């Protein structure tokens, strides 16, 4: 009888890419450690800093989210998505895939679209993070407004990621042609099939 014994192949750890690879790259031996650049960890890395630039254990990080500073507790492996959703209760960005293949966790980091599911909190520290929630509130941004009027949403689970991706795309290409729209937003997946109406929504914001 053939027997297989060993670690159950669970696939991936929470951070989405192989943490083992990451650590091997950083040369750190302990499980929950990561290299941090100077100044990235804004506060309270008491048990983290042994002067070797390696963060360990749980540390307090200040994140600049939607124009306000928030303290979050993070291990080196904690993703930005995890902190936004589970600590700051900003649940617009969605955990659809652990890598950036779905686009559902798209946020703006220093104005550029980024995947919060594959970015560590430590990488996000000191940067300006904007989530989909910043486009809502009392004054609705034209992008989500156009998503509503074009009905560019069904179940809505992919919608926040799409809204942020479209916002970023139009910031860069305010006069995008139809062809540019169709080739510039292929980083997001919708399962319900709202693409046709998303194209309409983008055209509404672009005008013409």
């Amino acid at each position: 009888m053939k027997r297989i014994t060993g670690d159950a192949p669970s696939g991936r750890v929470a951070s989405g890419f192989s943490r083992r690879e990451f650590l091997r790259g950083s040369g750190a031996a302990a499980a929950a450690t990561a290299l941090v650049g100077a100044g990235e960890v804004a506060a309270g890395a008491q048990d983290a800093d042994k002067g070797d630039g390696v963060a360990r254990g749980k540390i307090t990080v200040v994140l600049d989210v939607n124009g306000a500073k928030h303290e979050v507790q993070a291990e080196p492996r904690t993703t930005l998505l995890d902190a936004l959703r589970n600590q700051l209760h900003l649940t617009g960005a969605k955990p659809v895939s652990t890598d950036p293949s779905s686009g559902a966790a798209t946020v703006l980091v220093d104005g550029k679209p980024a995947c919060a599911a594959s970015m560590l909190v430590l990488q996000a520290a000191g940067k300006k993070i904007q989530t989909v929630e910043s486009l809502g509130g009392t004054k609705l941004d034209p992008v989500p407004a156009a998503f509503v009027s074009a009905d560019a949403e069904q179940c809505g689970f992919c919608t926040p990621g799409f809204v942020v991706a479209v916002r970023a795309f139009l910031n860069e290409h305010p006069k995008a042609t139809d062809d540019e729209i169709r080739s510039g937003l292929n980083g997001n997946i919708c399962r319900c099939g709202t693409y046709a109406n998303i194209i309409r929504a983008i055209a509404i914001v672009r005008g013409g």
Partner: protein
Amino acid sequence: MAVEYSWPKKADAKVLGTEHDRLDGAAKATGAAKYTYDHTPAKLLFARGLGCPHGHCRILDIDVTAAEKAPGVVHVHVLQKPRVGDDGKPIQPEIEWEGELLAIVAAETEAAAAEGVAKIKVDFEPLDVFVDDEDLEAAEKAKRTSKGGGKVQLEKEPGDDEDEDEFAEKEVNRLLGEAKHVVEGYYGIRPITHCCLEPHGSVCAWDGDKLDVHLSTQNVSGTDEQFANALKVAAGDVHVQCQYIGGGFGSKFAADYWGIACAEIAKATGRPVRLMLTRDQELKLGGNRPSGYLKVKLGADENGVVTVWDSQHWGTGGARGGVVGHGVIPYVYRPKNYRRVATAIKTNCAPSRAWRAPDHPQACAISQTAYDDLARVMGADSLDIFRKNLANIESNQKAEVYAAEMDIAAKLMDWKAKWHPHGKGPAKGSVVEGLGMAIHTWQGVAGNSNCMLRVHPDGSVESFCGTQDLGTGTRTVCAMVLAETFGIPVESVKVNIGSSKYPESGPSGGSTTVGGVSESHRRAGQEALAKLAEIVAKKLEIDAATVVARNGRVGSKDDDAKTMSWKEACSLLGHKALEVTASFRRGAEGTPLSGAGVGGVQMAHVAVDRETGVVRMKKFVAVQDMGLIINRKLAESQVHGAMIMGIAYALFEERITDPETGQFLNAELADYKLPRLGDIGELVVELYEPESERARGVIGLGEPPVIGPGAAISNAVCNALGVRVPVLPLTPKRVLDALAKAKA
């Protein structure tokens, strides 16, 4: 006086049939909408399952010691524990598909739960794996097949002393021999997954003996009892809620064993627990659609009308068997003579779940392709063949409606101008273009639904219904129905859905929801209005039978002076809200509010690169009837979505399983190919709502338009190439293989 339920005429309708914005649109577009995955109560434990890595194995031992000691891990729940039976013999669970959860770890963070899972040690005994669902002979040899039923229908009957099977064999061969045109074809469609973007899962919390569940479900009213039965608590002590669901498509009707386990862990730890499947688990376990493969010989007369159909088809619904039902073969078309037989194959893959329009997309894709091959063989126009064969159909919709829809679709596609015989179109470099079509049907009868309605003395209106919104726009539909009934703005109606504490409403499956909630809300609305009318009539000293509610006023339908504002009318209720509960039971006869049975015609225009094998959608037209339209914008969205899901299974997605290990090789979104925004071409939707169809009332729309795309797109590719690419999805490799085979 009994209220006579009815819809206003098209010309009189103020709200019905308009393009009202989705009421929860802004909440969804700005992240304010809270899905199950978004609920993060205080002291939440994050749970994650360990999936079985083998397609078929026995579990000899599960050691969770290291997992329990992992930092942050609070609880480990073993689902498949080997044990010793009463007879002293070991009982070792047999796992029949990869991904099946063996144990669940609950921890303080998601990362800690993942680390705990990685520390579980399992001893497996691998067993034989069988996953090939396409090779029927091999499946028979491996004893993996079972009969899936069949039927023989012949115009001639056997003599009294004749063996029926022998007669059928002889008669089918005779008909084929006499046919003017014969097609021998092979067609297939691979298994796909539901791939909900929000995976299956729940957040469970106990308050004493009461269980509160946020569940990603399309069955709010039906899952509370599933939890109650499994956990041995009173159904009334379980509260299931789902305000928003991130995709279901037929896969989220059940509490599921992982939902029950989530509640058990919450009980054991005394803390709220969230357990969502991981992405790969969602694809492996969350639901898949059975495959279908069909071999056929069909014969047709000189006009291209099919006179005889002789097919066998097979496929797999996974480890529990199952196959596309023979009753839908050939799809919609039903020649006067046919013989069809189905065979189910058991594979080491997770059991299938209902996938949007169960069986129909596969049946359409593997049989209407044969009808198109008849056009190819005859050098005839496919539209002509599809139209002529309307003489013999078995459908929920009438042939005249299909004919009318074909005319509309052909016009929108400019079919006549674009058409060329199969493989005879002009080439631009290596790119050739083609047209294809398909027709479909669905029942879409309204489901059970109850609605409790309160009209308050201040004029506000709120409704309560234990339904859910899969993304169709259920809230908006309910509000529109009540707004139409009371003559008030849509925004002024407060619709409450998504709780098992509300009056029961059916699961959202089979295109039953919009019909069901339209029934219950219209009935409740009309009942309430009748009561209000009596009070208003008394005050205005008019006949209650003449009272109408429109444009924000209630009163005489003939005399504007004898009316009052909606608010004023409601204030006559005194201090107590008017409360009405109305009920609709599925299948109620003679209801004027909802109907059943739709058809639809789809036409695809594609470009195929003969060098790379890449298929691009150029244009895709869908003409669809659905009875009475509540919200034109939302209805169009449903059709758009179905067309894109259809493009997905026609050109991109499939489950790829390793034949040696049974492992689902592409169970991540980076590998499980779905269309992107740039892949859809131009979509054209025409909602066919002549008075004859509208008069039938509301009929479900979710399923029907997802049925035709496989056949329509395959037929378009065949028209472009002159060669049939037999199996969907039509990936570049399959296109190139088919071209190479045709050349050889």
